[in-house]
C-alpha cells in the first residue's frame, strides 16, 4: 500500500449491440499499485454507482487467470501489457502515475459487442461443438493405464489444452482469425491416442465451422501467439495445417 497512482481511464462505452459507442474518460485518484486492474474498474464502478450512473459492463469471473471470462484490449494489447497473463492477473504496478489507459472490447466481426466492454464469444462454443471432443459415452471406458502415452506427448498435449478460450488470439489478429484457438484443441487430440480415431473428421469439421462463423484466415503473422495469455505456441497452427492437409488428402 506504500505506492498509489493517479490515472485516467479512457473506456469504450456502448449501450447495446446496435447502439453507437464511444470513448469516455474517467479520472481515478490514489489507486494502490497492488490493486489489480479489474479491482480498479470495480473502484470506478463503485464511484459511478454512487453518482447514480450505470457501471461499466465487463466480463470477469474467476479473477485468477483460468476461466477465460475476462477480455479487454488495454493500451492496444489484449489482456494489457503483461505477457503470459490475463487481464485479471494484471496489477496496477504495471502503470505509471498520470498515465492514460485506453480500454476497449475485443474487436472482431465474430465477437459482437453486447454492452460496453462485454462481447459475445458464443462462436467459440460452436466451433467446439462441431468436433472438439472424443465421441464416447460415459461408462464405456477401459482402465486408465491400459494405453501408455509418452510423457513428452502428454506434456505437449497438456500445453495445447491450456487454452482458456478467452479470444485474445482473435482480437490480436489483423484478420480476426481463430486459428490458434482451433489449433490448440486439434493439437491436444492429435497428440493423444484417444483423439486419433476421429482426427480427420474433427479437423475438417472445426475448420469448416470456423470459416462459417466469420473468422478470418491465417497469414502467419504470429500476433495471436505473442499475445496469448497462456502462451499457446504457434506450432499448434502448423500442426493444425498438417492435420488438415492430411485429412483432405485422404478424402
Amino acid at each position: 500500500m506504500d505506492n498509489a497512482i493517479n490515472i485516467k481511464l479512457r473506456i469504450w462505452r456502448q449501450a447495446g449491440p446496435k447502439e453507437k459507442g464511444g470513448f469516455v474518460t474517467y479520472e481515478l485518484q490514489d489507486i494502490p499499485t497492488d490493486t489489480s486492474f479489474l479491482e480498479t474498474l470495480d473502484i470506478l464502478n463503485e464511484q459511478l454507482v454512487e453518482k447514480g450512473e450505470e457501471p461499466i459492463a465487463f466480463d470477469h469471473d474467476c479473477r485468477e487467470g483460468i476461466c477465460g471470462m475476462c477480455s479487454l484490449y488495454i493500451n492496444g494489447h489484449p489482456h494489457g501489457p503483461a505477457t503470459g497473463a490475463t487481464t485479471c492477473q494484471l496489477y496496477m504496478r504495471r502503470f505509471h502515475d498520470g498515465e492514460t489507459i485506453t480500454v476497449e472490447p475485443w474487436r472482431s466481426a465474430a465477437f459482437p459487442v453486447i454492452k460496453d466492454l462485454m462481447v459475445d464469444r458464443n462462436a467459440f462454443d460452436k466451433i467446439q461443438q462441431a468436433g472438439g471432443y472424443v465421441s464416447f459415452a460415459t461408462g464405456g471406458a477401459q482402465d486408465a493405464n491400459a494405453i501408455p502415452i509418452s510423457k513428452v506427448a502428454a506434456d505437449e498435449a497438456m500445453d495445447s489444452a491450456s487454452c482458456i478460450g478467452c479470444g485474445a488470439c482473435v482480437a490480436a489478429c489483423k484478420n480476426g482469425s481463430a486459428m490458434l484457438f482451433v489449433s490448440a484443441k486439434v493439437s491436444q487430440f492429435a497428440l493423444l491416442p484417444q483423439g486419433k480415431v476421429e482426427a480427420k473428421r474433427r479437423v475438417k469439421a472445426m475448420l469448416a465451422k470456423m470459416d462459417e462463423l466469420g473468422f478470418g484466415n491465417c497469414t502467419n503473422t504470429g500476433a495471436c501467439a505473442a499475445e496469448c495469455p497462456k502462451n499457446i505456441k504457434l506450432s499448434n497452427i502448423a500442426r493444425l495445417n498438417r492435420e488438415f492437409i492430411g485429412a483432405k488428402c485422404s478424402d
Partner: protein
Amino acid sequence: MEENKINTPAQPVIDSKIPEGPVAEKWTNYKAHQKLVNPANKRRLDIIVVGTGLAGASAAATLGEMGFNVLNFCIQDSPRRAHSIAAQGGINAAKNYQNDGDSVYRLFYDTVKGGDYRAREANVYRLAEVSNNIIDQCVAQGVPFAREYGGLLANRSFGGAQVSRTFYAKGQTGQQLLLGAYSSLNRQIQMGKVKSYNRYEMHDIVMIDGRARGIIAKNLVTGKLERFAAHAVVIATGGYGNTYFLSTNAMACNCSAAMAAYRQGAYFANPAYVQIHPTCIPRHGDKQSKLTLMSESLRNDGRIWVPKDIEDAKKLQAGEIKGSDIPEENRDYYLERRYPAFGNLVPRDVASRAAKERCDKGYGVNNTGQAVFLDFSEAINRLGIDVVRQRYGNLFDMYEEITDVNPGELANEINGEKYYNPMMIYPAIHYTMGGIWVDYELQTSVKGLFAIGECNFSDHGANRLGASALMQGLADGYFVLPYTIQNYLSDQITVPHFTTDTPEFDEAEKRVQANLDHLMSIKGNRSVDSIHKELGNIMWDYVGMGRTKQSLETALEKIKELRKEFETNLFVPGDQDGMNIELDKAFRLRDFITMGELIAYDALNREESCGGHFREEHQTEEGEAKRDDENFFYVSCWKYNGDDEKAPTLIKEPLHYEAIKVQTRNYKN
C-alpha cells in the same frame, strides 16, 4: 435474543433411503434393484440442469447420452467457465497405481475421517467406489493427466492421506476435467440432446402438485424473465463461500439457486461447515475483490513456518527483515512440530487453525500480522530448482504476478545454507461442505428436485480433503445421478411434456418480478458491494475460523440490522430493460444475507467443534477440536419457515456408522 431462538419441534423422520446390506454392497444392491427408464421413454422426459461445473456439465452430458432431453443453464458466457475450472491440485481415486496400499476402503476411510465423522457412510463409500471410473472416463475423453516416463499415469499425495492417490494435470486439473466434461457436453449439444442456455440465471423453482416442474430464469443480456418446464430439476450451482464476500470463489458464484430450493422447502444441511483453505495469498487493502488460492499441492514440498522468536516476527511485521534472513534454527515449523505423522500434510481445517493460532499469538509475518511462510528452500536444496519449478512453476509465476516476489529466487545464504524467498500464505474461505440436503439418490426433500456437486451436503462431512471436490462433482454427475434420477422418473413416463402456460408458472414469475421490482424501487444510498463487504466482515469476524456463542449471537444481530439496511437503503442504478449487473448482484446479495444467517444459526446450535466448524468453547487443552458424538452425531437440516426474517426449524438426521468406528481424529502419530 428471543427471535433467534431455534425451533426444534417433534422430529419428522428423515428418510435418507440408504440401501440395505453391508456398506461395500449397498451401491451394487441399489443399482441391481432400482427402477430404470427404457430408451424409448427417455426421450419423452425433460430434465433441467442448472449449472455447468464438473457436476452440472457431466450430468447434463451423461443424461443427454442416455437419451433424456436436457436443458442446461449457466450464468457465464460459456459452460466452460464454471468455477470448477479454477481447481488446481488434482482428483483422488483409489486406483493404487503406486502400489502404496491404497484401496476403495482406504479412500472411503480417509474421507470419513477427514470429514471428522460427520459424513454419511453409505454416500462416501459409493464415492470411493466410483472414483476409479472417473479416472478411466477422463482419460478416455483425452484429459492430459501427468504421466511418468514409462507412459503410465503419475500421482501425488495430498493432505489427510498417507498414500499417493491424486491424479493431476499440471496445476490445472480442474480446468482439464471441466474441459473434458464440456467436450462431452458439446457433443450432446451438437446432437441436439442438450440445449444450452448461456448468460441465464435461475431465479426460482416452479412447483406443480408438490413436485419441482420447472424454473424461472433471467436472461442476463435482455433482462427478461423466461420460463422453462421439465419433469425434474437438478441444481448444480456450487457453494455459498461468497457469503463471506472475500473468498477464493469466482465473482459470480452465488447461493441463489440453493436459496430458491430452500425457500421451496428443500432442507439446507450443515451450513456451518465452511472450509477455510490454509494456502491462500494473504489479504491486502480494502479494495480487494477476491482471494487467490495457492494449490494445496504446494504443501507436498513446501514447509510452513513462523519465527520462533516473537522479536523476529515483530521485525517482519515492521518490514525490517525478510523471511530469508531468519536461519533454520530460528524457524518454527509448527505443523511438523505439532503433527509429526502428517506434518505439513494435515487436513485443511487443522492447518488453517494452526496458522490462526500462531498469528493470534503475534507470530504473523507480514504487515497485517495475518500471514505465515510457505518455504521451498529445503525442497530446492534437495531436488534442484528445475525439478521444483517443473512441479510448481506456474504457481510460482502466479504468486509473483500478484505479489511481486518470486518464491523460487535465491535470497540469502547463511552459514553455507541457501535460503530462497518464501511465499506468504493465510487461510481463506474456499469451499462449503454444507449444502442442500439430499438423500442417497441425491434428491432433495422436495420431490423431483435434485442437488449435485458442492451444492449438496452429502460426502464431505465437516471437512473436505484436498482433491476430493473434483472427485465428488464428477461422481455425482457421471456415475450417480444419471442412475438414481431414473428411479424417480420411472413413474413419470406417462406425464406429457409440460407447457409453461399454467397458473403455477404465472405465480412464480410474478413472485420473482415483484422481488426484482422491489430491489429497483428502494432507491437508497448504498451500493450492493458496500453492503456485501459489510456482510463479509461480519461473517469473517464472528462466524469465521473460531466461533463462540457470543460471537454468533452478535453475528445474528448484526445481520438482522444489515438486512434492514439492505431493504431500505440499497441503490440499484439503471432499469430492468436489458443488462443490469447491479440488479443481478443485488438479487444475489439478498440470498447471501439469508445464507449468512443460516450459517450462524447452525454454528450456534452445534455446541461442539468438528472439521471446519470450530467452537472455541469446545477444544482440548492442546487446542484441538473437541467433538461431542453423544449429542451432535447428526446432520442438521434446516427447514424454511415461510419468511427470511423468521428463524428456521432444525430437523436432525441421525448418523449411523456400520463400517467405521467413530474416534477422535488424530494426525499426530
